[in-house]
């Protein structure tokens, strides 16, 4: 569903993104990994059209993202933000309903749609609280409900981008949100591209990883194959101890 085809993006002479051909198919959870300043968020900005690559192109559902109609693209590609500041005293329900912005939907259908998605993300009980009074984890889940509403009229399986979704969360919330997203991959065939900092979370939840360093995509593969102490030392300058749990799961210390 998403094909990043040899893009090159320079800003002020500095290469921020340089990729081989990368693919993401529906039902896949792919983590984007790399040390600070490696250009992980640049990749997200290129996919969401905030930046335009100088060479190469990004195909989404077979069509160049730049050629998509903005509203249509919004119905098929959602971004879960990392910052969660909302101005004015909107309630959780109102924030979630903002997800209907790009949809063609009658006013009557909105309450049910919002309710279904808030139940999915376990936030329905918060609906009448002001968004700003929620905890970090609750805010993130309300935002996820908002993005799911936004994607509820997708033409095909939608793509969900997560930009460091768990950076400000405690352990329980990190797992909660990633598990929710992981379930969307499995049950609803969503494609997910997540910028993650925590390699253990990446190892646990993703099908594939793209490792980025100094703007370049240097390695792609399954987490168990590429998250080796040697590779991690090469890019993160720290050699962890890897403890194998079983064939597909491991922990990095």
């Amino acid at each position: 569903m998403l094909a990043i085809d040899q893009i090159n993006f320079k800003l002020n002479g500095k290469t921020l993104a340089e990729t081989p051909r990368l693919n993401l198919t529906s039902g896949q959870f792919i983590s984007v990994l790399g040390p600070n300043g490696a250009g992980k968020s640049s990749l997200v900005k290129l996919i969401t059209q905030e930046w335009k690559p100088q060479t190469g192109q990004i195909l989404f559902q077979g069509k160049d993202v730049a050629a998509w109609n903005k509203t249509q693209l919004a119905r098929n590609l959602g971004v879960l933000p990392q910052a969660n500041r909302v101005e004015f005293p909107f309630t959780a329900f109102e924030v979630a309903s903002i997800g209907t912005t790009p949809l063609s939907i009658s006013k009557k259908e909105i309450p049910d749609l919002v309710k279904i998605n808030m139940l999915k993300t376990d936030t329905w009980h918060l609906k009448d609280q002001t968004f700003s009074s929620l905890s970090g984890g609750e805010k993130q889940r309300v935002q996820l409900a908002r993005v799911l509403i936004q994607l509820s009229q997708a033409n095909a399986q939608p793509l969900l981008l997560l930009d460091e979704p768990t950076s400000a969360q405690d352990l329980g919330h990190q797992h909660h949100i990633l598990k929710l997203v992981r379930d969307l991959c499995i049950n609803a065939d969503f494609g997910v591209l997540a910028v993650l900092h925590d390699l253990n979370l990446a190892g646990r939840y993703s099908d594939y990883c793209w490792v980025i360093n100094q703007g370049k995509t240097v390695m792609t593969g399954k987490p168990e194959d590429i998250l080796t102490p040697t590779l991690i030392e090469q890019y993160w300058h720290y050699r962890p101890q890897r403890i194998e749990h079983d064939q597909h799961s491991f922990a990095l210390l």
Partner: protein
Amino acid sequence: MTVRRYSYHQVSVVLLVLLMVGMFLSITKGPMSLPMGQSLLAIWDGIWGSELNQLAEYQQVVVVDLRLPRTLLAMLVGALMAVSGAVTQGLFRNPLADPGIIGISMGAALGAAFSIVLLPVFLASLVTPVAAFFGALVTTLFMYKMAQSPAGTSVLILLLAGVAMTAFSGAIIGFLTYIADEQSLRDLTLWNMGTLNGATFIWVGLLAITFVVVFYFYLRDANSLNALAIGEPEARHLGIDVEKLKMRLIILTAIGVAVCVSATGIIGFLGLVVPHLVRLVIGPDHRLLLPLSALTGAVLLLIADISARLLMAPAELPVGLMTTLFGAPFFAMLIIQQRKQLF
């Protein structure tokens, strides 16, 4: 924190009733009190050319030519300033942004003052709103550029730049009053105080057209303003062309503020106070906030004008003085409330 919201329909009905009461008071009360029924008949006669009322000629003039346009002008300016305030706050993503406080009104006043002083009288009345528009537009664009930072809009810079802008425009207007001839000077002082004194049906017509057009386009962007509140990149990801949206809103706000300022001078703080009150009652959803702000603005300016006429009767206070008297402490209260976010 659970919030309680009132029903949109109930609140609108209450406001409409208040608006009606305000209109009747505004038409019948003043240094000269007139009977309600006869006054309404006089207006009816004024419109249809009938002769049903039994008021004396000079009383009819007071009702039809003075109080009626004044009442309508108060409602329209109140409504337009209030929605302009609501949209400015949405655009800058901050509840302290008000066309008066961040210098837009003063920019409009500066543009208007230039046309009043430098152009011959017959031209000035036509050009004043246009000159005010350019003053307001330049100020808004400047403020927006100033306050933008990678981390979002900086309120502190916005408010300080507003202070600088207001002082600067004030100084130039002061300079213009020195070189003004007698007629211009009279126009300038009258209008600079913020008064509904000069109400004519021509202004009422211009205000009505401006309000309808600006309000229509504001309402079309109400959903986008909601999306903008959850963040600029987020609004973009929701399919909104944020740059175009901002430009559209800046131009519309400049038009609205410019026409208001040209008609009545600077009537401060309505744009700040009204959306804030409405948000407390109905919440921040712009689809409800904008219509109710318009109604509340109309009601409040009407009340302010009635009290400005009655407090020192037969003398009359400028209505801008009334709104500022109540608005400024309100602003101080908001700052105290927001102190944490400012620094």
